């Protein structure tokens, strides 16, 4: 009969895809000895980690790697799901809309502060609607110019910028982006005034290489390949320490300018999640973050692994939020 034949073919196709996918998704190879069930049995099923930015990007790849390690510790898989949109707002609101039972996590970042103050989150959902599980990584940004630019170092660049206020074009990664804030912070520290060009981080690279802007403020990671190839010159690193991939580039602090702004990432859950669950998650994620495997991996993305506990993360978020609010107010973007 026609219909049965059709069903058989449909099922065969489904089965084929299933098998292909089966060998693809490796959910936490055998769990290393089951965690002793002392108090509440957690986790009992797979967890959902919301990733806020595009599939295949740094946030996504690092988040997945970290989750893999933590899943091994917890004995249940952590499935990374990309929920992009609204500069992170869509993903944050999704997580806040779920039960606070520890099964819904978010790969949190500086974006929570930015997107809240930009007015894209409901008024009662700022960073404090979340509870930190662990802070994991820090990432520095850099200011770079084209290799054949007339400025050999930051000194000369500042001199020129001071002589031409509002003339020096600086590409950032979009209005209200982390790099826009960094550029604003650099303006403050250097005592200059830039003309900000809101591109995205990849467009910034092409704009600088194509000679359409004078400089860019971007994640160090995006500048590294160009600097190594001699196409760009990094003038300074906005961060606490130099970067292995560009050891010759001094930090802003070393050059006498007090600006350090780091893009941080961590794991967070809705704030009502019970203590013992948060602690369990914290241990798993910290173990994963401290593993050599993860550190090796993070290095490829020029991230510093700087894990802290959930409690420290909460305090850190509060402190960062205040600073970011101030910067956003300065560039006229603070809505709430």
């Amino acid at each position, binding site marked *: 009969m026609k219909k049965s034949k059709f069903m058989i073919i449909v099922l065969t196709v489904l089965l084929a895809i299933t098998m292909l996918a089966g060998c693809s998704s490796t959910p936490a190879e055998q769990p290393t000895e089951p965690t002793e069930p002392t108090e509440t049995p957690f986790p009992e099923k797979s967890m959902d980690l919301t990733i806020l930015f595009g599939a295949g990007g740094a946030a996504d790849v690092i988040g997945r790697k970290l989750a893999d390690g933590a899943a091994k510790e917890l004995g249940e898989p952590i499935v990374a799901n990309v929920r992009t949109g609204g500069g992170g707002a869509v993903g944050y609101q999704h997580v806040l809309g779920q039960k606070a039972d520890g099964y819904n996590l978010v790969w949190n970042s500086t974006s929570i502060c930015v997107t809240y103050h930009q007015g894209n989150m409901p008024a009662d959902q700022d960073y404090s609607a979340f509870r930190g599980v662990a802070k994991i990584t820090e990432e520095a940004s850099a200011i770079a110019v084209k290799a054949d630019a007339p400025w050999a170092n930051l000194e000369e660049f500042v001199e020129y910028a001071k002589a031409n206020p509002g003339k020096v074009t600086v590409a950032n990664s979009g209005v209200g982006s982390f790099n826009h804030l960094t550029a604003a912070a650099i303006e403050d520290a250097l005592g200059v005034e830039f003309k900000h060009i809101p591109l995205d981080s990849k467009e910034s690279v092409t704009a600088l290489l194509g000679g359409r802007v004078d400089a860019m403020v971007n994640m160090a990671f995006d500048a590294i390949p160009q600097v190594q190839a001699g196409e760009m010159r990094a003038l300074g690193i906005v961060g606490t320490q130099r970067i292995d991939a560009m050891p010759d580039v001094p930090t802003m602090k070393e050059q006498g300018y007090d600006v350090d702004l780091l893009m941080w990432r961590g794991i967070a859950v809705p704030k009502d999640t019970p203590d013992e669950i948060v602690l369990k998650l914290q241990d798993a994620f910290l173990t994963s973050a401290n593993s050599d495997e993860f550190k090796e991996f993070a290095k490829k993305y020029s991230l510093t692994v700087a894990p802290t506990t959930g409690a420290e993360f909460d305090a850190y978020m509060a402190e960062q939020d205040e600073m970011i609010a101030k910067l956003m107010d300065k560039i*006229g973007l603070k809505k709430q």
Partner: protein
Amino acid sequence: MKQNRIIATVLLVIIAFWAYLTTQLPETTMIGEPGPKFVPAVLLGIMAILSVSLYFTKDLQKAEETEIEADEIEKEIEPQEELPMSGALKLFGIFFVGIILVYLVGFTIGLIVSLSAMLWMIGWKLFPRAILFSTTVTLAIYFLFSWALKIPLPNGSLF
């Protein structure tokens, strides 16, 4: 003549509403940049002109329409038979209820109910044929996505 007038009027109402929303948008904070209002405003302006011109355009006669060469996809479907619009809208309605059910009580129940209902409406026996077929399809897809591809399908917000 009448049809184009109705469409144009509906469009103009939408345009007016959208234009009102556009006026509510904030100004830009950047020098040179025309701001969030600019592009919607231009588009709405062009659409308003086009709608007005549509209002005064004569409806194409069926014969005329088939005469003209190089048309869009819809062409070949049209001449067969005119399907009643009410029937189509009913089917759309059931599908919409199905989508709402998916949101409320989850993917499997929502789809099984709405798919069975649609099949029943077009003349299948509700039991066992329609229900059996929609259940098989829904479960196969559910299995494929949640289990094999690890894509979390909606479980229903009521639970």
